[in-house]
């Protein structure tokens, strides 16, 4: 019994802040009304966040699925070098290349752009995603692909019709990690976006704490926290199994 008492006490400790934040935001429903009208309107920021998440998840899935297939099933010159270069992204602290990325995106006409931000997120996700996808494709029996090729499918057709189905669980894991990273990240959008209308939720809600706008509205702030947190909590609870697979795969090892 002492075992469950200990666990329950700990669970209260871990759940209390979330429950409090939800309560504090709902205590005055006007918090949400005020937040909806904050700055450019919370709808704009949420739409930006959703757009970035969609582009990040989509981009990561496409790039890592194609790349994972290449690394698992093909030999080509520079293969090892490219794989090492991709994994090196894990070694280089991303905070240290955001300033050159800001300048570089300027050269490409992607400064202050949600597309530019999403591309940066895809790059950050790539080592984990590529590693996951390569392993998933390697786990598929070669016969499955060979049968399709003998039947006259090109490799691309075999890829889209057969192999992608077989790696679906890995795709879900990669997509989930990409979503959480893009939705929650604060530092990259802080640096790469400089105009209020293009802010994502974290940057917009953090700006509610700047005192230049008068007194801080703490209730509205917690409403902002909820808008950011609730989608992640729901997704995590629904896709928990797939999240844990990301840990088991060893892909976190840099």
């Amino acid at each position, binding site marked *: 019994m002492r075992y469950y008492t200990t666990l329950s006490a700990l669970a209260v400790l*871990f759940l209390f802040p979330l429950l409090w934040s939800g309560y504090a935001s709902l205590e005055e429903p006007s918090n949400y009304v005020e937040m909806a009208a904050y700055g450019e309107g919370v709808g704009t920021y949420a739409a930006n966040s959703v757009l970035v998440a969609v582009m990040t998840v989509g981009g990561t899935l496409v790039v890592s699925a194609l790349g994972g297939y290449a690394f698992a099933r093909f030999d080509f010159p520079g293969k090892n070098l490219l794989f090492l270069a991709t994994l090196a992204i894990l070694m280089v602290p991303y905070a240290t290349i955001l300033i050159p990325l800001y300048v570089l995106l300027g050269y490409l006409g992607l400064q202050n752009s949600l597309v530019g931000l999403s591309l940066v997120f895809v790059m950050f996700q790539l080592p984990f995603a590529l590693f996951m996808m390569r392993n998933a494709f390697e786990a598929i029996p070669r016969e499955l692909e060979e049968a399709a090729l003998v039947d006259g499918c090109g490799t691309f057709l075999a890829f889209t019709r057969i192999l992608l189905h077989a790696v679906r669980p890995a795709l879900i894991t990669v997509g989930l990690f990409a979503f959480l990273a893009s939705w929650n990240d604060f530092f990259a959008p802080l640096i790469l976006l400089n105009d209020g209308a293009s802010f994502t939720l974290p940057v917009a809600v953090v700006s509610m704490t700047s005192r230049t706008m008068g007194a801080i509205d703490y209730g509205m702030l917690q409403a902002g926290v909820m808008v950011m947190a609730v989608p992640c909590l729901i997704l995590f609870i629904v896709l928990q199994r797939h999240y844990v697979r990301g840990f088991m795969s060893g892909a976190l090892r840099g």
Partner: protein
Amino acid sequence: MTLTVRRPRGRAGHGAPPVSWWRGRKAQGWLYAMPTAVIVAVLFIAPLLLVLWMSLNRWPLLGQATFNAPDNYTKIADNALFVDSVFFTLKYTVIITVLLSAVALGLALLVQESRPGVGFFRTAFFLPGAVGFAATSLLFYGMLNADFGPIDPMLRALGVTDEPVKWTGTPNMALFSTIALVLWRFAGFNMLILLTGLQAIPTEVYEAARSDGANRWQIFTRITLPLLRPTLALMLILSITGSLLAFDQFFIFTNGGPDNSTVSMVMVIYRAAFFRFDLGGAAAMSVVLLVALVGLNVLMMRRLR
């Protein structure tokens, strides 16, 4: 790249005999890997080279860059804020890594066996890890506010204090509160990493030890810890690297205060770039941090594995 062959969509390989389907697979492999190569080259290799080049130039936010090497590097040592931030960040990293490892290991040991209801507790401990770090910082910003948050009234009701607690009012309190925030956010995440390691230990090993008469402490120190070493090493590396790059919690929750006592290294770089518009100086500090971290990572991987 000399690849001009467009990947034929669909049925190009139609009817090809099995022997030759692998012919041209080199080119195909390259095509599939191309998006990865482009992303890595443009968004990773190029900025790496650019940060080196920027660090050798006076590089204002707007306007022409002019070569001024090695000024950006020599002035780092004179930047008192950066030097202080190095010491502060190291101190923070040591404290967080020790506490986080202890808490995460404790939690992992508590929930490692599958007993009824354990799944719920695992999820409960992990849930904060699904919430973003910025959202977490804002949550604590409100929760630890003396007027708005619930903690102060609770402490007063319990008679622990009768004055408002200055959660971020003194350097030590600010650090303490930040540590509480980070532990809450990351304990479950690290617990999950350790759980994967714990569950990889075969149960036969434990059974053998028990039948040899080993007690729980002996099992923990002689079997669990040594076999968990690679996983612990991974957790340590992630925690150390993450803490050395700390930004969100100090930027949002303490805003570097009071009196710049909680300014992390990445915060100094950010301020140099976007408050003082000195991208060259920021780039030089980035290069120093980058080299130090890559070196540290290599060292840790050699040592700990």
